[in-house]
């Protein structure tokens, strides 16, 4: 397939349809409304169903029902809407249902704003809903990567019977870039013999459930989930290492912020400062080991985020005290500019001399 | 002429002693067995005068715990 120029939000829709997503339940919210609009237009042509729900709460519970009925299904929203979906996400994780959830993050807390932000990192990676659960959280930095990860996300969800979240921001959602929809690496996906499809001739009933009233049973269920999360941690880490051969400092950044950081790295190079980048692509599972491994190579680390410091906590866990870890961020919809990142790097290196 | 009578069977171990069945019997034969308690700790419902049963099914229809089965028996001659 030849590359076509696509807007991020619409590319998500195209990739989902290509990945065999047959159901989309959503609710309008800026800055991701082009996605449900695209789905409303394009899904019927693909023999798929778009349904606008009465709320994000209803939408995620429709996802629960459809996923439990054996379908490939997704929903999308932006920060305040994702907060509303947390109840359903927890139930989906508890009942072990596969689905893909897209969060095009905007500034918070509360109604916040509609401009790009990364301040939902904690909510996405540390379990925004209640209970011990994890979901794979993927943070693409380009429209191409967005479609690649989205398509793979459906397979990851099916492989582990677990929700997968794709996070981006308004920049990624709105930017137009050339895209080629590419099939992900083939995985062995288990049959959905657990789905509620009507017993037919099956001989037993299937039940989708997250209730375990006996604490011993509930603990047993949690341990089963934990074993699954451990597998995901082992198999699903993704990251990019950029210019880290001989760095003075290593910056940690993900998503669109990492692209701004790359510009800052070029500017630093012009001034004789060698800056590396570790870009986590999977925010959960987080590539802690990579930070520990590279801790010997740099004088310091700097986490650059569109938040007031969230991923920096994981960077610190990864670096494990071997080197100082600094933070620079803008928030509320303000986007860091390369010159400010360069200034921050100079300040740190000046102090580190 | 064929004579029709009824027979009710109680799965006594399921009975919770709510007494709803005793209020709907048109011939007033469903009683609580005050002489025994089941494993749940209730006096179970029972019928002492089965020959009066007319197999109307009211007791079983009203029972919230499907304790009761009802048969209609036709005696020929």
């Amino acid at each position: 397939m030849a590359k076509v120029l696509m807007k991020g939000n619409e590319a998500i829709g195209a990739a989902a349809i290509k990945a065999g997503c047959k159901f989309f339940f959503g609710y309008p919210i800026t800055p991701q409304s082009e996605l449900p609009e695209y789905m409303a237009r394009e899904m019927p042509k693909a023999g798929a169903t778009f349904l606008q729900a009465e709320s994000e709460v209803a939408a995620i519970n429709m996802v629960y029902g459809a996923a439990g009925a054996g379908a490939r299904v997704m929903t999308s929203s932006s920060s305040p809407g994702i907060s509303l979906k947390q109840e359903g996400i927890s139930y989906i994780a508890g009942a072990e249902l596969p689905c893909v959830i897209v969060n095009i993050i905007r500034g918070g807390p509360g109604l916040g704003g509609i401009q790009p932000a990364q301040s939902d990192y904690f909510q996405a990676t540390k379990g925004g809903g209640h209970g011990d659960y994890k979901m794979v959280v993927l943070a693409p930095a380009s429209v191409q990567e967005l479609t690649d990860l989205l398509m793979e996300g459906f397979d990851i969800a099916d492989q582990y019977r677990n929700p997968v979240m794709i996070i981006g921001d308004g920049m990624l959602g709105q930017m137009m870039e050339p895209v080629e929809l590419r099939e992900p690496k083939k995985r062995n996906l288990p049959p959905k013999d657990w789905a509620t499809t009507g017993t037919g001739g099956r001989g037993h009933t299937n039940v989708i459930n997250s209730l375990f009233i006996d604490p011993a049973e509930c603990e047993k269920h949690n341990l089963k989930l934990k074993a699954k999360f451990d597998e995901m941690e082992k198999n699903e880490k993704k990251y990019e290492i950029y210019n880290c051969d001989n760095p003075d400092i290593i910056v940690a950044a993900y998503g669109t912020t990492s692209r701004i950081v790359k510009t800052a790295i070029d500017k630093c190079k012009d001034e004789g400062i060698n800056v590396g980048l570790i870009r986590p692509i999977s925010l959960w599972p987080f590539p802690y080991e990579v930070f520990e491994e590279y801790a010997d190579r740099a004088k310091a680390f700097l986490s650059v985020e569109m938040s007031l410091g969230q991923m920096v906590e994981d960077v610190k866990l990864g670096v494990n005290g071997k080197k100082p870890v600094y933070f620079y961020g803008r928030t509320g919809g303000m986007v860091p500019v390369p010159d400010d990142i360069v200034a921050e790097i100079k300040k740190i290196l000046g102090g580190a001399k | 002429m064929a004579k029709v009578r009824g027979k009710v069977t109680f799965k006594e171990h399921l009975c919770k002693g709510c007494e709803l069945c005793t209020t709907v019997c048109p011939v007033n034969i469903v009683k609580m067995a005050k002489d025994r308690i089941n494993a749940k700790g209730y006096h179970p419902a029972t019928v002492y005068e089965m020959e009066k049963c007319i197999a109307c099914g009211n007791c079983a229809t009203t029972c919230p715990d499907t304790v009761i089965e009802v048969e209609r028996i036709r005696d020929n001659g």
Partner: protein
Amino acid sequence: MAEMVFQRTKGLQDRPFHYCPGCTHGIIHRLVAEVLEELGVLDKAIGVAPVGCSVFAYDYFNCDMQEAAHGRAPAVATGIKRVHPDKVVFTYQGDGDLASIGTAEIVHAAMRGEKITTIFVNNAIYGMTGGQMAPTTLVGQKATTSPFGRDKNHAGSPIRMSEMLATLEGPAYIERVTVTTPAHIRKAKKAIRKAFEAQIEGKGFTMIEVLSTCPTNWGMSPVEALRWLEENMIPYYPLGVYKASEEVK
């Protein structure tokens, strides 16, 4: 010669109910299960259990089941029905679940005319959590969170869901029934059957509201509770058909 007049339906699993003595959930479960068996759709039925006393409904119905979050059963059922339009999908919900936390979900499922059947069990109280005031609790009725009786000026008047949903275009059939006598129970079963038939024929959203008791939290014997229902609930929640679209009539 003997014939069975009444025996346990295959629509129920062989498992005793956990409900309190005299709780009418058992009767209503049985009616739904009997209807599914008699319509021959047990193998293509998918039910959605609520949160409340009937949270374990998935242990009792002999068909595929999903357990929903509190109030969300109509949204979950929407997801299921859209995936399997040829299957028979139902929700089983209490009054806290449907008429309080899940009002948005039930109203919009009804508005869309989702081809599902909702069994709405209204006993005017929260049972599982210990007898708190429900949106359906009658004015003056005592509950653990309305210890002096529901005060209209403070907590408003109880919500009549069947009447409210009947104003929408989406529902094909809405009827309110009760289970206080064998005659009422037989009538309730007929209503439930009619609702499922309308769903199977693709007519639209269907709901049967069943006025029901909670002897434990009402503080009455099961027999007293049935009489209290007849004397107090039926006058406020009149029985009858509230919506029957042209095709269902």
